[in-house]
C-alpha cells in the first residue's frame, strides 16, 4: 500500500473517532464482548465434546444403580479412606465378587461396561513421577483390561486408539502418556493415591469420545456392606440385570444378596446437562456475537455515511473505487482487530481470576481460532457491504448532498 494512503487512512480514522468517540467505543465494546463470549462458547462446546467430566461411552440417558451386598462379615472391597496409601481388598470369599461378576457380564455382552465414580473429586493426575501434574475437577472411570493411555485428542491419537485399543485422554491429562492398568497408581491431590483395582468393560474400536479413568476404590463405604454402583447403558432392563447379578452372585456365595435395582438418572442427567449447558453456552455466545454484529452493521453504516463526504472528496481528487474500499476496510479492520485483542485479554482475565479456580478447563485453540475466523468473516461481509455503499453513488451527488 502507498504509505501516503496509510497515513491518510489513519488520519481519517482518528478524525472520525474524534467526531463520534462514544459511538465507536460502544461498537468496540460490543465486539469485544462478542469475542469473549464466542471464545468461551467455542471452548466450552469443544470441552463438552472432549470434556473429562461426565462424558461416557454410550448414550447414557438413564442409569441404573444396582446394589450388591456381601454376606455379613466379609468385605468385598474396602472403601476409600482419607489416609494415603494403597488399599487392596483383602482376600476372602466373595472378594471382587462384584467386580468379577460384572466383568463376566461384560464379557458375555450382557452389558457394555461399568465403572466406579468418584464424584466431585479434584484430582491431580500424575502418571510419571518426574513430571508435575495438573489439577482439575474430574471424574474418572476405569475400564477393563490394560488400557494404554495416549495423550492428546488429535485424529492421530484417536487412530492409535482405534488400532491398538486403549484410552485417549484430553489435553488436561495429555502431559503424560503411558498405560494404566489394574493395580497401577494414580496420585490424587492433595497427596493421596488411588490404586486402580479393576478395569472393567471391554470397549475398543474407534470412538471419538474419550474414555475416562477413575480410581477404582472411589465408592462409599458406610455400614459394612459393600455397594457397587453399576452404571449401564440406557434401555437395559433393571430387572433383568438384577436377575443376572443374583444368578451370578449365587455362584459365588449363597449369602450374597442383590438388592433390587433402582433407577438412577441423576448421573445421566448430569452428563446431559454438562453437554447441554456447553451447547447452550455456545449457542448464547453465537447469539451475542450475532447481536453484536447486527449492531456493528448499523453503526458501520452510519460510520461510512458520515465518512461519505471525505470519501467523495477523495474520489474527486483521484482515489479509485479500490482505494476507497481500502479506506473502508481499514476502518473496520482497525475496530475488529482491536476488539479481538481486547476480547482475548478479557478471556484470559476471566479464566485466570475465576474459571481456573473453579476447575473449568482453559480456553481451547478451537475457541481462539474459531472466534478469529468468525470475526474475520463478519468484518469481510460488513466491509463488502460498506464498500459498495461508499462507491455506488457518483461523487458529484455525494458532494452536493453532504455539502
Amino acid at each position: 500500500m502507498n504509505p501516503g494512503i496509510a497515513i491518510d487512512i489513519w488520519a481519517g480514522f482518528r478524525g472520525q473517532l474524534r467526531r463520534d468517540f462514544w459511538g465507536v467505543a460502544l461498537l468496540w465494546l460490543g465486539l469485544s464482548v462478542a469475542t469473549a463470549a464466542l471464545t468461551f462458547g467455542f471452548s466450552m462446546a469443544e470441552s463438552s465434546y472432549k470434556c473429562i467430566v461426565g462424558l461416557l461411552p454410550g448414550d447414557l440417558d438413564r442409569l441404573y444403580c444396582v446394589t450388591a451386598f456381601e454376606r455379613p462379615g466379609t468385605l468385598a472391597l474396602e472403601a476409600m479412606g482419607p489416609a494415603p496409601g494403597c488399599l487392596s481388598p483383602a482376600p476372602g470369599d466373595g472378594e471382587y465378587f462384584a467386580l468379577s461378576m460384572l466383568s463376566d457380564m461384560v464379557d458375555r455382552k450382557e452389558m457394555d461396561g461399568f465403572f466406579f465414580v468418584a464424584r466431585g473429586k479434584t484430582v491431580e493426575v500424575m502418571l510419571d513421577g518426574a513430571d508435575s501434574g495438573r489439577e482439575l475437577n474430574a471424574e474418572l472411570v476405569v475400564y477393563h483390561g490394560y488400557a494404554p493411555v495416549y495423550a492428546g485428542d488429535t485424529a492421530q491419537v484417536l487412530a492409535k486408539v482405534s488400532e491398538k485399543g486403549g484410552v485417549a485422554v484430553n489435553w488436561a491429562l495429555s502431559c503424560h502418556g503411558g498405560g494404566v492398568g489394574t493395580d497401577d497408581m494414580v496420585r490424587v491431590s492433595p497427596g493421596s493415591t488411588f490404586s486402580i483395582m479393576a478395569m472393567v468393560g471391554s470397549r475398543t474400536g474407534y470412538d471419538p469420545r474419550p474414555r475416562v479413568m477413575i480410581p477404582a476404590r472411589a465408592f462409599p463405604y458406610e455400614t459394612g456392606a459393600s455397594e457397587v454402583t453399576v452404571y449401564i447403558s440406557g434401555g437395559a432392563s433393571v430387572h433383568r440385570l438384577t436377575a443376572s447379578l443374583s444368578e451370578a452372585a449365587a455362584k459365588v456365595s449363597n449369602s450374597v444378596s442383590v438388592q433390587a435395582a433402582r433407577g438412577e438418572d441423576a448421573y445421566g442427567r448430569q452428563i446431559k446437562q454438562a453437554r447441554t449447558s456447553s451447547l447452550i453456552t455456545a449457542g448464547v455466545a453465537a447469539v451475542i456475537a450475532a447481536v453484536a454484529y447486527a449492531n456493528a452493521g448499523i453503526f458501520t453504516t452510519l460510520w461510512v455515511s458520515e465518512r461519505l463526504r471525505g470519501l467523495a472528496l477523495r474520489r474527486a481528487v483521484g482515489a479509485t473505487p479500490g482505494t476507497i474500499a481500502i479506506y473502508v476496510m481499514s476502518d473496520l479492520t482497525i475496530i475488529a482487530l482491536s476488539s479481538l485483542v481486547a476480547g482475548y485479554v478479557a478471556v484470559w482475565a476471566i479464566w485466570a481470576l475465576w474459571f481456573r479456580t473453579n476447575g473449568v478447563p482453559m480456553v481451547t485453540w478451537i475457541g481462539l481460532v474459531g472466534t478469529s475466523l468468525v470475526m474475520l468473516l463478519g468484518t469481510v461481509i460488513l466491509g463488502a457491504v460498506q464498500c459498495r455503499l461508499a462507491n455506488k453513488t457518483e461523487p458529484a451527488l455525494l458532494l452536493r448532498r453532504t455539502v
Partner: protein
Amino acid sequence: MIGLFGVIRDYHARDTTARGLGPVSLEIPAGQAVAVVGASGAGKSTLLSTIGLLDSPTSGVYRLDGIDVSGLSEKRRSVIRRDRMGFVFQRYNLLDELTVSQNVELPLIYQGCSSSRRREAARLALDKVGLSGKGRLRAWQLSGGEQQRVAIARAVVGKPQIMLCDEPTGNLDSSTGQLIIKLLLDIHGESPNRILVVVTHNVGVARQLDRVLVMRDGLVMQDGIPQEVLAQ
C-alpha cells in the same frame, strides 16, 4: 480540448425522472477560461460535474482530447480526474482531520508520489496562493478566504490541464472573492493549454473570463464573449 455532444443527464427517483442537463453540445478549446452563469437549478453544477467526470451522462458523447470518456468505468474516470483535473468547490471541501499541507498533498498521494516530493510540491503550491508557513495548521484554523486558497492549492498541485471551479467565491465577501478570481486567472495564465471553467452567479466574475455560457433549465441558452452575452 473538451467536447460535449448531445450530452444529457437525467436523475431517476422511483417513478419520476428529472432532467438535470441537456441536451448540451459545446466545445472548449485548450487554454480557454469559461464562465458558466445562470439561476439556481439551471444545471451549472451538473455541467461542471459532467465535464469533471464526477457525474456520468445518461446519454450523449463526451470527448476529452478526442477520446470518448462518456462510458468509462469509475476507476478510469478517477485516474483521469487524478492526472488531468483540479477541482475547487464552493464550500472548500477541506478535510478537518488533515493539516493544510496534507490536504494539498492529497491528489499527489493518489498519483503515487513520494512523501518528499509531495511535501515540496505542497509547499510550492501554498507559496503560490500566499499561504507560506501555514502548512501545519488545520483547515478550521483558517479564514474562509484562506481555506479557499488552500482548495486552489490542492487543485493546482498536480498541475492539471483542466481546472473546474464551482462557485469559488460564493461563500466569500466581494474583496476576498476578487482576490480568489485573480489567483485563479493567474494560475490559468501560467499554462497556455490549461482550461478554466468557473461556475458563478457573479456577473463581475464572468466578465473577466474569455467566454460565458448562460444556462437555463439544463440548456445552454447563450454562448459567447462576455461583452456580448452579458449585454443581452
